[in-house]
């Protein structure tokens, strides 16, 4: 099983999708597409979110599923929330460079 990498193995920068293809008609689409924020998380974090949604967002149900205590599961969720917020900030910085955000005008 191969997992989708989200970081460059050489410089650790965020990777982008350059080509997409249709497995049915083999049409290829080229460009520079950012990975969605959720896809940038680790496989473990994605699996946690997956199960969390399936459990209707119940931390108690997650604790039961994982065999862990309620605060341990809540702490893990807090850590994932922090990572999602970081990824969002990075995403914004990528699309709105510092000069733009500071209101710089290059005309």
């Amino acid at each position, binding site marked *: *099983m191969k997992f989708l990498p989200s970081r460059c193995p050489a410089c650790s920068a965020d990777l982008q999708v350059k080509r997409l293809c249709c497995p049915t008609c083999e049409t290829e689409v080229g460009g520079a597409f950012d990975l969605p924020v959720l896809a940038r998380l680790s*496989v*473990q974090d994605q699996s946690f979110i*997956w199960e969390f949604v399936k459990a209707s967002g119940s931390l108690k149900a997650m604790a039961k599923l*994982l065999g862990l205590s309620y*605060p*341990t599961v*809540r702490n893990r969720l807090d850590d994932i929330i922090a990572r999602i917020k970081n990824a969002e900030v990075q995403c914004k910085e990528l699309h709105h460079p510092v000069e733009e955000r500071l209101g710089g005008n290059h005309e």
Partner: protein
Amino acid sequence: MSDDAMHAVQPRRKNWFSMLFNPFRYVAGGSALVIGLGLMGPAAYVGSLSRTHFDGVLDVHSGLAAPTWFFLAESVIDWLSLALLLALAGFVASRSKFRLVDILGTQALARTPMFLVAAGFLLPGVQRFLTYLLENLPTLTQSPTATPADLWKDLPLADLAVFALVMLTMLLMIVWMVALMYRGYAVSCNLRGARAALSFIIVLLLAEILSKFAIISVARSAGITSS
């Protein structure tokens, strides 16, 4: 998402080390509170039989006779002093939302090693050694001709060995209890690193002072004194 990826969220196998030093990874909240309080009662009863007082969050002393309820009151005061102060510290130091029941539960369960300490003081060798000390120390300290060698002269060596072993076990149990208290606090409030350690040390010292004062007040109002 594939089934392979789902393995990441399968229940993890518990190992003994983790269960001993961080049981709160698996147990917290109401269940920890029930187990902790459930053990606090028998520990207080065993403590009353061996006259073992937990007269402070980190204190263990033996000798003073008192009614059974007082031994339970000491344990409850120790537990609440630390748990409530840790909850206050959590509100200040933690950025996460946490439940009071987790702190109360983990701190109640963290006091479990004290049950073993109280049981250790029940050993006949320890009781004989303490009786020997209580009977001989006052006479020897009041006698102007007595030397320290007089105390050791008739000392039962086997009882001394048992006593030393229980003291060593007691020290290890206190270290274990403090480690459990810290882990309980860190897990309940989602704290780690210097922020967790520093706030825990400050609260532990404050709780020790608070519990000591509270226990002395209860003892005085109930007419329980060492004299």
